[in-house]
């Protein structure tokens, strides 16, 4: 494998990290039945705040910490208004998304384009020397390694532990979970805050590691939060599929960067292409639901019909049944 390919693949592993944390964080929130649409604003605000705090205190750790705290604070607003006040989750999410973005640009303006501190690579001895695998997976900063562990942990927690099972329950049918002795609203608060913290980490991951620095609107971060939201849906609220979605999107972005230097395709197309491609994939995944597809399938001969419908059914995802619906006992 030549060097360009290796760099591209390694780049995917790195570029996917912030989206991964944000999308899986959102996954936890939505599994509990709450929609948090503020992701995009949260990432911008925490990217700025993490950068500024790390610059002023010379501590990367404090930069990440403030990101998690701000993420939690934004999520707390969502949780309070939707769980306690039973207000529209969509409305509050949109307002926060816009508010946080504008706050980030406004408050961060004095720090635009300042040189700051950032996370350096820490290749893992021995492992990095394995041909092909080493340079792709083990020649990164520590966040990338953390992301590998995080995906596995998220999966195990959700599907192999008792609290994870309860989490699925409260988003699916809160009344039934309550009937089994689960404190639905308390858990919804908890997961919204935890998920918020994870989303909040995504900001500093960009500004301190993946896309180093802060340059206001030119940072190029506006939009990734919405993509993270889409990936949560595309991933069918399943951490492994969400992770796949994050790598897929990062792959499209990396491909754009590689093609940019090697071909004559206009740069605008390469920058914009990942977004429509993402939409197209979303469509493909859920196409099995459409009535005309069912009719076309019915007309097919038996054998291919069974194979195709099996694949479509596997791809098909359904949201937690009570997503966005407040829980009331009576």
């Amino acid at each position, binding site marked *: 494998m030549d060097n360009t390919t290796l760099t591209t693949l390694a780049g995917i592993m790195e570029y996917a990290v912030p989206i991964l944390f944000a999308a899986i964080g959102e996954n936890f929130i939505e599994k509990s039945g709450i929609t948090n649409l503020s992701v995009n604003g949260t990432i911008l605000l925490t990217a700025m705040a993490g950068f500024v705090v790390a610059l002023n205190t010379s501590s990367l750790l404090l930069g990440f910490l403030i990101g998690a705290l701000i993420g939690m604070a934004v999520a707390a607003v969502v949780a309070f208004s939707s769980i306690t006040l039973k207000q529209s989750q969509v409305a509050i999410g949109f307002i926060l998304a816009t508010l946080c973005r504008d706050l980030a640009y406004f408050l961060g303006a004095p720090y635009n384009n300042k040189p700051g501190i950032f996370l350096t690579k820490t290749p893992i001895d021995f492992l990095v020397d394995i041909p092909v695998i080493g340079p792709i997976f083990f020649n990164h900063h520590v966040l990338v390694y953390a992301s590998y562990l995080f995906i596995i942990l998220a999966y195990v927690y959700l599907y192999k532990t008792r609290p994870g099972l309860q989490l699925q329950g409260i988003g699916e049918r809160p009344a039934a979970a309550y009937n089994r*002795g689960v404190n639905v609203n308390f858990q919804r608060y908890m997961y919204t805050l935890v998920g918020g913290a994870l989303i909040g980490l995504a900001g500093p991951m960009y500004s301190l590691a993946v896309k180093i620095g802060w340059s206001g609107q030119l940072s190029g971060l506006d939009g990734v939060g919405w993509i993270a939201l889409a990936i949560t849906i595309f991933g069918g609220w399943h951490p492994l599929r969400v992770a796949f979605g994050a790598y897929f999107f990062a792959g499209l972005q990396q491909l754009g960067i590689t093609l940019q230097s090697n071909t004559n395709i206009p740069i605008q197309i390469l920058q914009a292409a990942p977004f429509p491609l993402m939409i197209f994939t979303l469509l493909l995944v859920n196409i099995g639901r459409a009535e005309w597809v069912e009719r076309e399938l019915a007309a097919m001969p038996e054998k291919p019909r069974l194979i195709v419908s099996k694949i479509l059914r596997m791809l098909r995802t359904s949201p937690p049944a009570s997503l966005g619906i407040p829980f009331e006992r009576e």
Partner: protein
Amino acid sequence: MNIELRNIHKWFGKVHANDDISLKITSGTIQGILGENGAGKSTLMKILSGFIHADSGEILLDGNLVKIKSPDDAIRLGIGMLHQDPLDFPPMRVIDNFLLGQHGGLFLNRTQVEKQIQELSQKFGFQINPDAYVETLTVGERQQLEILRLLWMGVRILILDEPTTGISANQKEKLFATLVTLAKQDLTVIFVSHKLEDVQGLCDRVAVFRQGKVAGELTPPYNTDEFIQLMFDKEIKIGAKTTACRPEPLLRLENIGIEDYRLRLRNINLTLYRGEILGLAGMEGSGQKLFLQMLAGIKRPVCGKIMINDVNYAGKRYENFLKAGISYIPASRMEEGLIPGLTLTEHFILSEEHNELLISQKEALNLTQSRINDFRIKGVPYSKVEQLSGGNQQRALLALMREKLNLILMEHPTRGLDIESSIWIWKKMKERCADCTSIVFISADLEEIIQYSDRILVFFGGMVSEPIDANTTSVDELGQLIGGIGW
């Protein structure tokens, strides 16, 4: 366990749902709670199972005063309730439904619980695969699942809220046998229903509820008239069987095929006559609903012709079916039939054909009021539909139908309704038939099918029977066909 309820009161706003209810239930018996919709049965059971709290009153278990603050408390005290719509998690596996309520460590003990489920299922002759997804089970199996789960949680008092709604005759028999076994093992079973024949066939003692109060208690031998007198405070009789069927065909199906992910129906041929009532029988999910939705123009057939007046309607849009005078009344009243949040008047405005931009409120109000009177809906034109009781919602749905119709399609027209409402609804439908309208309906209640149909189609595992004459068949024969015997 012995239960004693003392002077239970519960208000919902201005409605006195439970008005000074006192009741004693002894261990090892099956206690029936009978009453029409809105009589306060469910409210009392929700209080007993911790879902809601009484405004005043006491609950004693084996003579000890207890406070039940949540369903979790109730389970700890040994009280479990099977809700009308079983409170389970459809997209999850059976075993996860068990594990979710279990207290314990971080990780799940799947193998152990799986073994326990299998042992319990065997003990009661249920066939429940712990790895099956709940959404693939029938309502009857989901009930069995909940009963097993509650027993597994150590419940000594089992409350069943309208458990025979939506299950087949076979499953009902099995359920009753299970309940008798449980009572023999000294469990207390509380059986809530609005169906006379169910409580008569099963219960050791029956408390009849009327308007939030205990109207009286009866013990065997039971007398139906006595029950009806207590339930309604008046006498009610089912009318004799009549037919309005004429020899003119309304619609002809030619080699129709319908299918979805799970089912394939093929080669359906049928001629439906004017004024005829056609009943569709079968276990839930055997294709009756597909058939009905095909007639409604909601589900397109994959092959064949739907001929109405020599025009093929297969593949046409829903609006064309509406124009042809076909009206569909779905089973889920609140999800598909009515629009929560809108008032009765607004519903009537929506359902009438209007071409002008502005709505004449006065005209609409008049129309609504006259229909409310005509259909005896308990409500005012400004009532939001979700505030109406089930029976009144069904009446509202019927009242919404256009004046002149050729075909009415109904799914479980009287499910969850008390006898009085059911009889009344069928009286209204018969009036329509006399007016040349045909009716096709699905019901899980075989007696209803035989009583009101002219002909019957039975659905089983992707097969559709030839039309059966309702005058010459019996509940037993239909029951066997539904169960797959005699094909």
